[in-house]
């Protein structure tokens, strides 16, 4: 007997089946909505107190929603750590390495060059450095607005407002009141999802030219790429994409080794400056941190910048990413020992062991380069011709580029010791080549005695030799900082007072304290 017959004979069986199905459909519906409800929960786990606006540049506003990240970020203020070679305090690198004055003669770096402090000081320090000059009373800064690009979350805000090329054009002092908040939240994060985000066009464009799509990067890759927006080698291209605009460009079209970047610059005949003493067309390396890091064993094993420079931290049973971006040597337990189970002492020893050896050879190259520049200068004084010096100058250009590639990013000696030793090795070879060529030029000119080398062994002596008038530059700078910068800050305060204010935020700090904090940030 089939079900059909049963139902025909006893309809109540049919009704029971019907109602049972209704019950099952109902329960299934309830089940679906519990799933939906619990899915929604995940977005409530981290319920923010306020809605952060697109490209919000004020870090303290983000801090209302993410107090732990903000507090640790604010710790980049600290200047109390010193490792063997670097640290979080400002270090006068010209004083430490007087050779740099000679290597950069004719370039502003020979006036003033410090090892940088934390992100918190980004805006303050670019105002302070002698390299940006003292633009006052109609006199322009020697630097373009492009120099602001990496200093602040105000940059993406302004770029969105006026356009990328427009942002880069003009003199540095023109954006003084616009760029106020130091490197922070909006530089790397999306305000809605907190996902990592690339905000600087140069990196996206460099990826595009290499046929790579940066939007396809994984979360782990992004934890390196957000740093690569700034910690890279770059130059200002005044031809492309807009004539006359110093457009921030990464020279990665051939690749990112020292040789590949050198070839790129040679092909387009680019130089940052002509050396004051040797007349060599020099490429100044900026800070190829990303380029050198990608040649390292840590990178090959999938370790990102953030893994060591922003390790996980727990506080009162809560875990989060430490936003005090700093040397891992100041936090070996959380940075290195997550993977390396050796003692702190052993780890430190092996780090310094690598760095000592790399820096020894880099120092040798530095010494040789100083001699090469001074000897080339002597050859010019003896009456050498452009034709005679052509090869020498190209060698000096290549050797100094390799030295700078190894030196400029500070961390390269640890990040990629093997690659850096290789690059320094080729630099030494090329520089010695140049010295031999200078010797034969001098012989052709009939000079066979020893080449006299002036005493440039300290910062003062070296700067005196190349004619840097430090007291004058410093006095101008002081006047600029005392008169122009306060005006910038006033303008900025007026502008920011029109942005949404968040005093009413639930559980936010008392109004007075927040204001005080903001004020102390602005007065810095």
């Amino acid at each position, binding site marked *: 007997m089939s079900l059909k017959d049963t139902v025909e004979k006893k309809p109540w069986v*049919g009704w029971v089946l019907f109602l049972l199905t209704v019950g099952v459909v109902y329960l299934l*519906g309830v089940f679906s909505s519990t799933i939906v409800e619990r899915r929604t929960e*995940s977005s409530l786990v981290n319920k923010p107190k306020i809605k952060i606006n697109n490209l919000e540049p004020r870090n303290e506003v983000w801090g209302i929603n993410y107090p732990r990240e903000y507090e640790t970020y604010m710790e980049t203020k600290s200047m109390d750590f010193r490792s063997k070679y670097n640290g979080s305090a400002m270090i006068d690198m010209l004083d430490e390495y007087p050779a740099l004055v000679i290597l950069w003669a004719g370039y502003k770096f020979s006036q003033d060059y410090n090892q940088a402090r934390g992100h918190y000081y980004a805006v303050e320090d670019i105002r302070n450095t002698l390299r940006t000059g003292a633009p006052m009373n109609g006199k322009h800064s020697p630097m373009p607005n492009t120099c602001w690009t990496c200093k602040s979350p105000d940059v993406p805000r302004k770029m969105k407002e006026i356009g990328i090329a427009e942002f880069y054009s003009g003199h540095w002092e023109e954006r003084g009141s616009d760029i106020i908040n130091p490197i922070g939240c909006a530089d790397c994060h999306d305000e809605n*999802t907190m996902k990592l985000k690339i905000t600087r066009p140069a990196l996206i464009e460099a990826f595009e030219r290499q046929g790579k799509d940066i939007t396809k990067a994984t979360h782990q890759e992004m934890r390196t790429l957000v740093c690569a927006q700034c910690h890279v080698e770059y130059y200002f291209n005044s031809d492309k994409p807009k004539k006359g605009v110093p457009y921030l460009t990464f020279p990665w079209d051939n690749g990112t080794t020292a040789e590949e970047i050198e070839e790129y610059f040679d092909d387009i005949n680019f130089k940052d400056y002509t050396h004051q003493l040797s007349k060599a067309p020099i490429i100044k390396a900026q800070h190829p941190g990303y380029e050198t890091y990608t040649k390292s064993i840590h990178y090959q094993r*999938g370790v990102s910048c953030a893994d060591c420079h922003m390790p*996980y931290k727990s506080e009162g*049973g809560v875990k*989060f990413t430490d936003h005090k971006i700093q040397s891992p040597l100041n936090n070996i337990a959380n940075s290195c020992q997550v993977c390396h189970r050796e003692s702190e002492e052993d780890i430190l020893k092996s780090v310094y062991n690598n760095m000592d050896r790399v820096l020894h050879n880099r120092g040798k190259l530095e010494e040789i380069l100083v001699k090469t520049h001074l000897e080339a200068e002597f050859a010019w004084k003896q009456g050498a011709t452009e034709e005679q010096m052509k090869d020498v100058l190209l060698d000096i250009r290549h050797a100094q580029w390799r030295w700078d590639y190894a030196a400029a990013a500070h961390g390269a000696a640890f990040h990629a010791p093997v690659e850096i030793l290789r690059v320094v090795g080729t630099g030494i070879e090329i520089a010695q080549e140049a010295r031999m060529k200078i010797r034969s030029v001098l012989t052709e000119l009939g000079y066979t005695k020893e080449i006299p080398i002036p005493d440039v062994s300290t910062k003062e002596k070296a700067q005196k030799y190349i004619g840097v008038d430090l007291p004058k530059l410093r006095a101008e700078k002081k006047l600029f900082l005392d008169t122009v910068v306060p005006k910038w800050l006033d303008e900025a305060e007026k502008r920011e007072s029109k942005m949404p204010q968040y005093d009413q935020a639930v559980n936010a700090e008392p109004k007075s304290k927040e204001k005080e904090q903001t004020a102390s940030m602005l007065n810095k």
Partner: protein
Amino acid sequence: MKLLRYFTPPDPWKIPVFGLLAALLGLGIYTLNIANAFSYLSDEPEVCINCHVMNPQYATWQHSSHREVASCNDCHVPQTSVFEKYWFKAKDGLGHSYMFTFRLEPQVIQIKSEGAQTVQGNCERCHEQLISEVNLADNEEIFHGDGKYCWDCHVETPHGSVRSLSSTPQAQVPNLGSPVPQWLKKLQESE
């Protein structure tokens, strides 16, 4: 065929019965869809955070060196054979979905005996060489996890020591996408 004939309803019943069965099927598909049911067949670590309960575990693993070589299933599901793997997954998964649906999950999730044996087995699977080198292989008790597990000493591997639901409130984990299709969203926006 015979079975189908057995279940065929009488003529006047046909339309409501088909309607209701179609609703059942449709709702069933919808439930499978919003629950990401098919993703559970894969080994992607993101599957384990379909429900947010495992976010701390995901985030802590993501910050450990194991993320380069082993994802959730490599440790927490037996890798001895494909049958054992899916049997374990089905058994464990049903248990988890039951706990989750009825909100029975504890604040601090702790591994149970069967899970611990599985993880121990997988520690040994990859680190066999290491264990034999340090001469633990002879110590039957330790090698088989009777009494001692690897993580009794290696406490922080790989999840660290803090594992409660509230311990990683701002951990970056990939969130589930919305089940609402793109075209509907666009339609809603335009209105």
